[in-house]
């Protein structure tokens, strides 16, 4: 069956599903406890998954398959990329439960159930090996998030959830039609088989566009990003964490799993579109982030800019770009999650997200100020934190393809430093002018326990990213080999001078991106 001799993936889906149902019938405290224990057990299972993952072994591991009706099968299995994203999910989930421990007081059982259901869907999306199973889980992920925003959200929650729903659903309808056509054409709904099926180039074009409609919204890419700031602002803290931490990764995962390997020619054909939208996103949303008055909106806009680096890296068609994009996804999951928690910490004390209401927090909340600084720096991409590794690799990969785009995208490091440090200054620096701010206590033990593990992970990924890159290496290699036939030529066109002889035959491949 697999290296563990029991269906661990099904267990990881079944367990939270069961707990979610039980939560509906429990009182508040019991629901909290059950949710926490369940998510911790899942985290432990995630570690088992990682520890037993055979790096360099078969591409798909922990495979399970039960045939259902028609073409439809309960098919699960993961490669290294899915595993890292599942790890991100199970790592953030207990933190989300902890973050909701005190701030959620109404309908606690239902709230915990929604989160556990969410976890089922997220793990399922990353583990699904059947394209329809993927679709159902992918779209169903909307529902608990929609409920979390709509019921436990802020004042304007209905508008935000409506916007969130409208945007994301629209794209998915066309994706479903595309999937049906694909299954008919290839005769299978099995994702590993589809990954090696060559669709006709003409068909690829519209299939790619159909998938793009869905993934671009989920990403979110400019200009279909406007649901994100509203969703974040209205969502409760834990909702924002999971939204930024995991849900935003589904778009990138979609590009990685479907668009690139299944439609390599079409992907190459639409590089201009991806590059154009991403370049606009980096500059546009960074500038918008600069003028925000609401902390959550600021971080939400910064997420759009960071996700643009992911799309740029993915569509560089080479190893550095794709590995970098995956690391940005993981890093952003941690860092933006942590930043939303940081906002939540002070929101819980003062019940406002308005930046100007704060100031001087370094004085009365030094521990908070330190951790907030660390995550700010990770968001800026300071070397030694996780933010740098991914950003650097993506941009290195991108540079091999297009120096213009890289130049524009790299301005993000200036703008990012601008808006994040400006935020930090207004929140943590200066004098304590407001009495209510002065009265705010430093991090509690519970809050410390939420933020410290993320801080450790951020540093780990920054100093020794090998732990996270080793499992994805083989899979990225497979992907790069698959799409290499469509890889664009770089724009560098290095030509040796006449006087000197060519050294080591190196320049021949330099302009061509990845060499295997």
């Amino acid at each position, binding site marked *: 069956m697999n290296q563990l001799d029991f269906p661990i993936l099904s267990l990881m889906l079944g367990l939270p599903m069961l707990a979610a149902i039980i939560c509906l019938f429990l009182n508040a405290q019991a629901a909290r406890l059950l949710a926490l224990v369940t998510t911790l057990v899942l985290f432990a299972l995630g570690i088992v998954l990682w520890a037993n993952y055979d790096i360099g072994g078969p591409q798909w591991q922990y495979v399970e398959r039960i045939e259902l009706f*028609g073409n439809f099968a309960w098919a699960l299995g993961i490669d290294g990329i899915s595993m890292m994203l599942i790890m991100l999910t199970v790592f953030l989930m207990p933190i989300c439960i902890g973050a909701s421990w005190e701030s959620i007081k109404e309908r606690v059982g239902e709230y915990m159930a929604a989160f556990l259901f969410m976890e089922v869907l997220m793990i399922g999306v990353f583990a699904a090996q059947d394209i329809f199973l993927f679709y159902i889980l992918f779209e169903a992920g909307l529902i608990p998030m929609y409920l979390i925003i709509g019921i436990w959200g802020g004042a304007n929650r209905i508008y935000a959830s409506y916007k969130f729903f409208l945007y994301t659903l629209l794209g998915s309808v066309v994706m479903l039609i595309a999937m049906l056509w694909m*299954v008919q054409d290839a005769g299978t709904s099995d994702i590993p088989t589809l990954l090696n099926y060559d669709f006709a180039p003409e068909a690829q074009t519209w299939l790619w566009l159909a998938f793009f409609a869905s993934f671009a919204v989920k990403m979110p890419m400019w200009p279909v990003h406007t649901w994100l700031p509203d969703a974040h602002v209205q969502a409760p803290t834990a909702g924002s964490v999971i939204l930024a931490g995991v849900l935003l990764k589904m778009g990138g995962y979609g590009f990685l799993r479907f668009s690139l390997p299944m439609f390599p020619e079409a992907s190459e054909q639409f590089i201009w579109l991806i590059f154009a939208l991403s370049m606009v996103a980096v500059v546009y949303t960074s500038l918008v982030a600069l003028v925000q008055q609401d902390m959550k909106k600021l971080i939400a806009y910064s997420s759009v800019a960071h996700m643009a680096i992911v799309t740029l890296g993915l569509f560089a068609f*080479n190893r550095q770009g794709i590995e970098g994009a995956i690391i940005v996804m993981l890093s952003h999951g941690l860092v933006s999650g942590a930043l939303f928690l940081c906002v939540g910490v002070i929101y819980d004390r003062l019940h406002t997200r308005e930046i100007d209401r704060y100031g001087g927090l370094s004085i009365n909340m030094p521990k908070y100020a330190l951790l907030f600084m660390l995550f700010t720096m990770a968001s800026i991409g300071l070397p030694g934190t996780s933010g740098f590794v991914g950003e*650097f690799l993506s941009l290195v990969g991108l540079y091999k393809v297009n120096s213009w785009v890289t*130049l524009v995208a790299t301005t993000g490091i200036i703008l990012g*430093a601008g808006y994040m440090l400006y935020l930090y200054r207004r929140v943590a620096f200066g004098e304590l002018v407001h009495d209510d701010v002065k009265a705010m206590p430093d991090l509690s033990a519970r809050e410390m326990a939420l933020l410290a593990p993320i801080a450790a992970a951020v540093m780990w990924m920054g100093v020794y990213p*090998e732990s996270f890159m080793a499992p994805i290496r083989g899979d990225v290699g497979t992907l790069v080999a698959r799409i290499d036939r469509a890889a664009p030529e770089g724009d560098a066109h290095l030509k040796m001078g006449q006087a*000197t002889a060519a050294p080591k035959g190196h320049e021949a491949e*330099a302009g061509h991106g990845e060499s295997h």
Partner: protein
Amino acid sequence: MTIQLIVFLPLLAAIVAGFGNRVIGNVPAKFVTTAALFVSCALSWPIFIDYILLSRAAEVVPVLTWVQSGDLNFEWSLRVDALTAVMLVVVTTVSALVHLYSWGYMEEDPDQPRFFAYLSLFTFAMLMLVTADNLVQMFFGWEGVGLASYLLIGFWFKKPTASAAAIKAFVVNRVGDLGFMLGIFGTFLVFGTVSIPEILEAAPAMAGSTITFAGMRLDTMTILCLLLFIGAMGKSAQLGLHTWLPDAMEGPTPVSALIHAATMVTAGVFMVCRLSPMFETSEVALAVVTVVGACTAIFAATVGLVQHDIKRVIAYSTCSQLGYMFFAAGVGAYSAAMFHLFTHAFFKALLFLGAGSVIHAMHHEQDMRYYGGLRKEIPLTFWAMMAGTLAITGVGIVGIGGFAGFYSKDAIIEAAFASGSSTGQFAFIIGVLAALLTSFYSWRLMFLTFWGTPRWIQSEHIQHSVHKTPETAEDSTGGYHPHESPFSMLIPLGVLGFGAIAAGFLFHNQFIDATEGFRFWAGSLAFDRHLMHEIHEVPLWVKLASTVAMLIGLTTAFLMYFRGKDRPARLAATFQPVYNFFFNKWYFDELYDLIFVRPAFWFGRLFWKTGDEGTIDRFGPNGVAAVVASGAGVAKKFQTGYLYSYALVMLLGLAAAVTWLIVRGAN
């Protein structure tokens, strides 16, 4: 093992002091960090002396894998060669002394462990920078010192000016980093590696090749070197990207001495020297380095002439001296650049710490207009500052000897002349002119501070201290008694004073002598033996030029600030526009505010209000909602709040649709 200790002890100490903070208390935190730095320093000098005596080859100690991504691999490692050895002693010595000095200077600060933790963290990052064997680790150190600099400039974060200066330093440096990063990307594209020795080895073969960058067809090595040089310009505050350095003086004075004079700001010079074989392959890049360096040298000197704040004068002086180092590198005299970096570290740290001692004595007053006559009150500080001034103005006698700056600055000026290129001649003329200005502003500082009659009571800080105003005070001292600083501050002044006097005399053979220098550097930078030989052959008037310039500057300053009471004011009034232009720092800050900062906010608001809300939302989701609402009234029902039923409908609908399509698709 030694090198690991040197580099990681400061990190360990920073962690202990930073996290221990209030728990372990002030003295243990200060002790741990200071002791760690003195150990690092004690371990560094033998390495340096070893390289001087034995001229050893480079050594690389691997530490940990960092990133492996296809053909892009780099690791954490510590490289030691002659160039690193020089930086090791500079960094650890100044840092250790600054730690010690801060015991006295920061005595009354409520937040001392944090300060010392930042200082040690800075030292660690700087050491990682100078021991880097690949460009990415260098970038790590580069950003690490940037972080420490940000934290230390903003150390007194309650002051709005301090936190603004901190952001400015970080963001302006990031503009340079944009160039640095693109330089790394390009280097990897061309050479397939980020390992510095491998790049340097392959660089000559790339000379004359061409590449497309951002749509332009350019000489490969020129564009790579220039991109990297933009990074160097940011960190070393060269013209255009210099605006953060004067504002960085908001940080505590020991920080200015360590980071913004002796070590971090010289990282750009270090980078150019480290990559000198690469720069040697592009004449255009070298010409740009020369011109930028020369322009910075003269620009900063003109601004330094008229500033009132003692620290700002020294800050502009630093900026100007960094310009010297760059044009030395630009004309191919990398060893002279490093030599000036070395001597400058001693005398500029001395001047800053001396200024700190004056500020300490004058109850935090930094305005030189309110100093005067301090020679008698704080004699030890006076003599230390005197040594620093003699060193920076390059006092010495050709053929016999002199203070540290005499050796290094003259070598640079002579090398510029001897290089023979037209940019070299330009740099030579500018260098001599800037030497005149250097002498003037340095002596102006000395005369205003230590000579003349006390003008203390005009200072608000002093008024605050003695509870008197100029009207009520009996004389211009206001009865204030400046006190000499404690020993923890005087000892570093003494040690650096010795360096300012003797560093040039002791080490000039190793650094710049054509034969000795070649042996010492042992290939760790591009050493032009011919050029270093030529500098002895320049005409006598060239050798005397900088000394004459120094004397003119001294005399002018003497006449204006020692003898003439109202001459400076009259001169300023006569040349009002020029004075204002210099005093307002050539209006760089105003210009940048106008063309970068304001437009960024303006565009931000435009994109947000008109773009996102006014266009995308209006025609997107809101438009759809309006259409729907006018029709079936669905949107209205959305607001009735029956979310559960809607979620259920969604789920069921979804499942039904999928099932139907799948079953149909299967047939």
